[in-house]
């Protein structure tokens, strides 16, 4: 009887320890050595959103060029611009986040084509790409205000190029 009571107490403590580990707080943290306070995840670099957008737009340009080769003379230079911007943004991310370059460099600088469905017609493709340029221009323009000087010049330069893309596609 006494032994059964002892076992039930130990079992209860073990259950409490497991539960507290899961929930992240414990009354006995000083005893069992389990960390109760863990570092918060690092604030992500705001450039990652711009990289993601640019990568998606490169994919869409690739898909449109593949689907409508007659539009290639118009779209290929724009795709080349966006791919160069993507490479520049990734280089900037790697410069500032040298410890995180594994994930960044693992991503292809210029994605393979065919991963995004092309719009149903050439006109729809041009319209979609023009919309992408407008969306990205707003994104980069907004990013200028709180960036460092170097990044402000980088983002502003890309935003201005996107304005020229819209003019070419108008």
């Amino acid at each position, binding site marked *: 009887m006494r032994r059964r009571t002892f076992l039930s107490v130990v079992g209860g403590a073990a259950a409490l320890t497991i539960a507290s580990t899961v929930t992240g707080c414990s009354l006995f943290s000083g005893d069992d050595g389990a960390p109760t306070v863990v570092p918060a995840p690092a604030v992500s670099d705001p450039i990652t959103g711009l990289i993601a957008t640019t990568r998606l737009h490169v994919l869409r340009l690739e898909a449109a060029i593949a689907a409508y080769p007659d539009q290639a003379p118009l779209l290929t230079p724009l795709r080349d611009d966006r791919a160069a911007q993507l490479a520049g943004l990734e280089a900037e991310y790697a410069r500032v986040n040298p410890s995180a370059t594994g994930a960044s460099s693992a991503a292809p600088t210029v994605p393979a084509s065919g991963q995004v469905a092309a719009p149903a017609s050439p006109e729809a493709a041009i319209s979609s790409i023009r919309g992408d340029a407008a969306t990205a221009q707003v994104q980069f*323009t907004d990013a200028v*205000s709180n*960036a460092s000087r170097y990044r402000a010049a980088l983002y*502003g330069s890309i935003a201005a190029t996107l*304005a020229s893309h819209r*003019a070419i596609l108008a």
Partner: protein
Amino acid sequence: MSSPTPTPDPASTDAPSGASDTESSGSGSPRAGSPQSVAPFSSSAAAAPGPLAPDALAAMESALAAEQAAVWAYGLVAAYARDDAAMITENRSGHLLRRDATAARLVAGGAQPTPPAPAYQVSVNVVDVPTARQLAQDIELDAAAAWRVVLGSTDDPELRGFALTGLSDAAVRLAMWKRVAGATPATVPFAGQA
């Protein structure tokens, strides 16, 4: 227009110190009427332009010189590229507005703007339509480069917005001139970057 290009700094992800002290504003920013323009940041609240720091002052003076040269040089372009008259008029008006707004911004920032020169040495010997169009492209290249340097020379959101408008307008004009001239590609990945 040989202002230094902005270079990376170690803490480049950080918001500039004091950046939140000045609200963004489009006031004083001439709009070229380009449908490709995007209002810089949220310009719901107007803020008075503040004094210009030395870096920004030097960059703004270079930008003013580029705009003054552009206004003058478009007169030369107009003499030879007569088929492009409407485009030249629109572009020259845009540079004229921006020149005056830049001078006003310098005055508001406590500086004394340098007046325009009576004449400028141009990059090409303009003798016909192709050389006139080449000069027009060079004008916009210079303007874009100058405004990019302003953008990278200040932490002031209002001034950044002002510079971004100038950079975007120049990039659009450059693309249009390249297209008219049949130059490919008509755009560059990083406007204003050499």
